[in-house]
Structures are given as structure tokens and as C-alpha cells.
């Protein structure tokens, strides 16, 4: 068992799942929406990147590899806006929105993934190599281009998003909505417009995760299902609404997944993952955020 490989795998998985979990966590706490259409947003971004690549190569245009990443992020943001327009804006102020929103997003997920299956067919697509074929070796740890690129680009995008949320006015609006939506409307924050920002942002994160994962796996209509499950469970484990909690949970579960895959086999990952999540929730019902919180609520 090679500790270097496990560490690198754990970090890669933590980055990718972290982006999904943070998106789900932010959506839940600011909009009150459990976004179960994440699988669709994920697959939509992957297919969007593939389709535009196909069009460009048909027109004999050479896309730089970074453009694929950017297209994935933009397609994810577009899918986020679509989900917002269908499942948030029409029903967010109706009674029992939490349940309705969940049902609406599941419906979008099912219809959307079936639509992708119908349009693109069941054959998995592969995206072009984004990061090339180099590798770095340091002290026995080998970083291939894919893992280095995945870790680097996700940390970069996440860092940019978190910095934006910390320093900009829109970010202040989103954080205010996450803490107290009622008071947010009292200071003049428009719930719907903020909803559009949040969904575009989380969609962009899902899009990057989709493109990064497609470097190892393929783009297929149902490729988003496992990331959805893992994203939701990591967000829960971190404490819904806490970005820092989601990051820590993503690291813990990334380590768990890499260790499980290396010791008892990849097919048991979901079992150990849920056992770990249940253990954490039993000890800390509010998730990891319950340990981190500096301020008492309400």
C-alpha cells in the first residue's frame, strides 16, 4: 500500500467532491432548496463541453485545452440558471417550498438526464485531454498531469469563489441570505436575483467538477448520479450551510474513499462512506459545522 498514491487520490477526490458539496450547501442555506438536480447540471456541463468541442473540431478550430474547462464551467452555470428558473423562481414563496423544491429538482434531474440520453445516445463520450501527459515526482509521490490539474484548478476556482463571497457586495448579499433570509429581504436584498447568482455560481462549480471527473471517467447521461449522492452526503456531514464544514468533510471522505479503495476495494466505498457519515452525525447532529461555529445562532 503506497501512502503517496492514497494521499494524492484523497486530495483529488476531496477537491472534486468539495466543489459539489459546497454548491449544495450554499444552495440549501441561502435559497432553502435541496438541489437534487445536481446530477443533471453535472451531466449537462460535461455534454456541453463535449458538444462544443465536437462542433469546433468539425469546423477545424483547435480549442486550447483550458477552453474546455471554461466551457464546462459556463455550461454548468447555464444549467444552474435553468434549474433556478424552473424550480426556484416560480415556487419559492409558495407554502411548503422545501418539499416542493425537492420534488421539482428531482423531476428536472430525471427529465434532464433522460433528455440527454435521448439526444446524445447511450454511448459515453470522452473529452479531450486538458492537462496533457506530464508528471511531477517528488519524494516518491507521483503527481500526474490530471491530478495536478484537477487539484490546482479546483482550488483556484474555489478560492476565487470564496474570496468573491468574502469581499464583494453580491457575496455579502449571498452570505446574508444564508444566515437569515427574512432579514435579508428587510435590508432590500431581492431573493430571486440572489437566487440566480447562487445557482449560476454553484452550477459553475458543478461544471468544473464534471469536466475534471471526465478526465478519469467518461461523460454519460447518468454520470452525475454518484457525484450527486456524494455531494449531498458530504454537505450533510459538513453541516448544511457551512462552507468550511463542507471542505473538512470533503477531505475526510476523500481520505476514506482513497483508503477504502486501496485496502478493501473500490466497490465498498459507499458502505464505509455512509458508515463514517452516520458516525459523525450521531456524535455531532449538526455536522462538522457544529464544532466550528464561532457565533451562537439566533
Amino acid at each position, binding site marked *: 500500500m503506497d501512502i503517496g498514491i492514497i494521499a494524492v487520490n484523497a486530495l483529488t477526490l476531496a477537491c472534486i467532491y468539495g466543489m459539489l458539496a459546497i454548491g449544495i450547501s450554499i444552495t440549501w442555506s441561502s435559497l432553502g432548496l435541496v438541489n437534487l438536480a445536481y446530477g443533471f447540471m453535472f451531466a449537462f456541463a460535461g455534454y456541453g463541453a463535449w458538444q462544443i468541442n465536437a462542433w469546433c473540431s468539425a469546423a477545424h478550430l483547435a480549442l486550447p485545452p483550458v477552453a474546455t474547462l471554461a466551457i464546462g464551467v459556463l455550461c454548468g452555470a447555464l444549467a444552474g440558471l435553468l434549474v433556478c428558473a424552473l424550480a426556484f423562481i416560480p415556487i419559492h*414563496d*409558495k*407554502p411548503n417550498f422545501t418539499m416542493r423544491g425537492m420534488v421539482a429538482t428531482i423531476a428536472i434531474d430525471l427529465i434532464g438526464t433522460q433528455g440527454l440520453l435521448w439526444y446524445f445516445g447511450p454511448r459515453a463520450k470522452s473529452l479531450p485531454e486538458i492537462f496533457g501527459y506530464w508528471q511531477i515526482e517528488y519524494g516518491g509521490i507521483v503527481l500526474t498531469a490530471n491530478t495536478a490539474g484537477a487539484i490546482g484548478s479546483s482550488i483556484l476556482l474555489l478560492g476565487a469563489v470564496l474570496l468573491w463571497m468574502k469581499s464583494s*457586495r453580491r457575496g*455579502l*448579499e449571498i*452570505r*446574508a441570505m444564508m*444566515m*437569515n*433570509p*427574512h*432579514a*435579508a*429581504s*428587510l*435590508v*432590500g*436584498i*431581492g*431573493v430571486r436575483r440572489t437566487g440566480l447568482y447562487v445557482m449560476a455560481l454553484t452550477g459553475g462549480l458543478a461544471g468544473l467538477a464534471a469536466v475534471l471527473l471526465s478526465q478519469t471517467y467518461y461523460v454519460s447521461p447518468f454520470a452525475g448520479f454518484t457525484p450527486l449522492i456524494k455531494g449531498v452526503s458530504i454537505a450533510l456531514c459538513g453541516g448544511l450551510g457551512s462552507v468550511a464544514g463542507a471542505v473538512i468533510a470533503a477531505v475526510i471522505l476523500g481520505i476514506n474513499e482513497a483508503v477504502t479503495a486501496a485496502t478493501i476495494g473500490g466497490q465498498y466505498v459507499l458502505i464505509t462512506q455512509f458508515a463514517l457519515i452516520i458516525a459523525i452525525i450521531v456524535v455531532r447532529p449538526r455536522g462538522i459545522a457544529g464544532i466550528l461555529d*464561532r*457565533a*451562537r*445562532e*439566533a
Partner: protein
Amino acid sequence: MADGVQEILRVTSLSAGYGALRILHDLDLTVLAGERLGIVGLNGHGKSTLFLAIAGLTGWQRGSILLNGHEVGGTRSQGPGRYTHRVVRRGLALMPQGDEIFHGLTVEEHLDSGAFTPRAWRERKPRKARILEIFPPLAKLMAVPVGRLSGGERRMVCLGRGLMADASLFLVDEPSLGLAPKIGRSVMQALMNIELGGAAMVIAEQNVSLLEGRVDRIIGMHVGKLKGEASVSLSGAARAQG
């Protein structure tokens, strides 16, 4: 708009409530520019609901609400809060009961969040300095998350946030509620010291003695209706005699 005095708020036959419960019954209220108005009444008689209805936050409502001449009321059967941000941009600052705060934001971020209009956002530094003059204890606490403040400090943050906006109508709901009497009095004093200019302030309060002699008018509220109005010159004169 008679006599050249501008009406900030004109509420006509406003009814509002939650579900089957009707709390306000065909209520009329006019607030003029530059005036400080007190609304007194017992718990559960609709003071807070009146404020929430002006902000569009009740379960349902009907009746006209003119804020600076713009209709912000109308009939609405559901969707509390859907249009609140528009009312706020028309010049409403509601400082609600029970401190609606963002527990994880620092005091400074909190004050920033109150400055929503573009002009207020550009001028937020001088405005924050002005708030610190009104509530000096906040100066030391600017970097502290609001969730760690005491009740009185939270109330100051909440009022300060409302004062950051370009508001023409300040609705202050029970500023002394839940505070020690001394702190409650100092919060009230700070509210009285604020220069209103062309704006107006309505304060709902159960403790009449905190308002007496300091506001321009006092209106009583009873079971969802406004009753009995006393101008302060009158109550002040009564006190001078007695």
C-alpha cells in the same frame, strides 16, 4: 399633499393577517415628513403586524399603502416577502422586533448590508462613522460576529443597519423590548437624537413613558385598529399642569 407638508406614508383601509387570522381591520394612517410618531398598544394588538404589512411580510393583506406617493400595498393572498426588497428600495427601513440579525456577519459587514441603494453603498464609510457617533459602544466591536454580542449591542446593530439606508420612513418595532431599563432608555434616547430631515420615524412601544413628551404624536392601537390620537404638545401640557 395639503399645506405643502409632504406625506411620507398614507395607509388606507389596510387589513392584514396570517391564514384565517385577521389582525388588522381596515386601518388608516398618515405619516408626514419630519415627524416622529409613537404607536402604543398591548401585545398582540397588531403593532408589529402593521409594520410587517407595510413591508409586505404578512401572510395576506389588502388595502392601499402609499410610500412617497408610490403604491406598495394592494391585495396579496400569499408570498410573504416577495416584494419586500422593492418596498425597501422605495425608502422603507424596518427595524423589526427581536433583532433580525445575520449571526455570522461582523458588525461592520452588518452595517454594510444595510446600505443597499447605490448612493448609500458609495457613502457607506461616512455613514458608518455617523452610526458610531450615535451608538459609540459599537466602535470597539466592528470586527466581532454579531452572534456573540449582548442583547443591547445587537439592538444597536439592528437599528444602525436600518439607519444606513437612504430611507424616508423608519419603522422601529419595540426598541426597548427585552433590554435592561437603563439600556432601553439610552437606545430610545439615541433614536430621538437622530436628525430626521425630510424623513419620518414611527416607533411602536408598549411602554408609553418612554415616548411621552419626546415624539410629535402618539396613537393608540387596540385590536387591530388605531384609536385615540394625542399630540405631544397636549400631553406635555397635561404633564406640566399635573
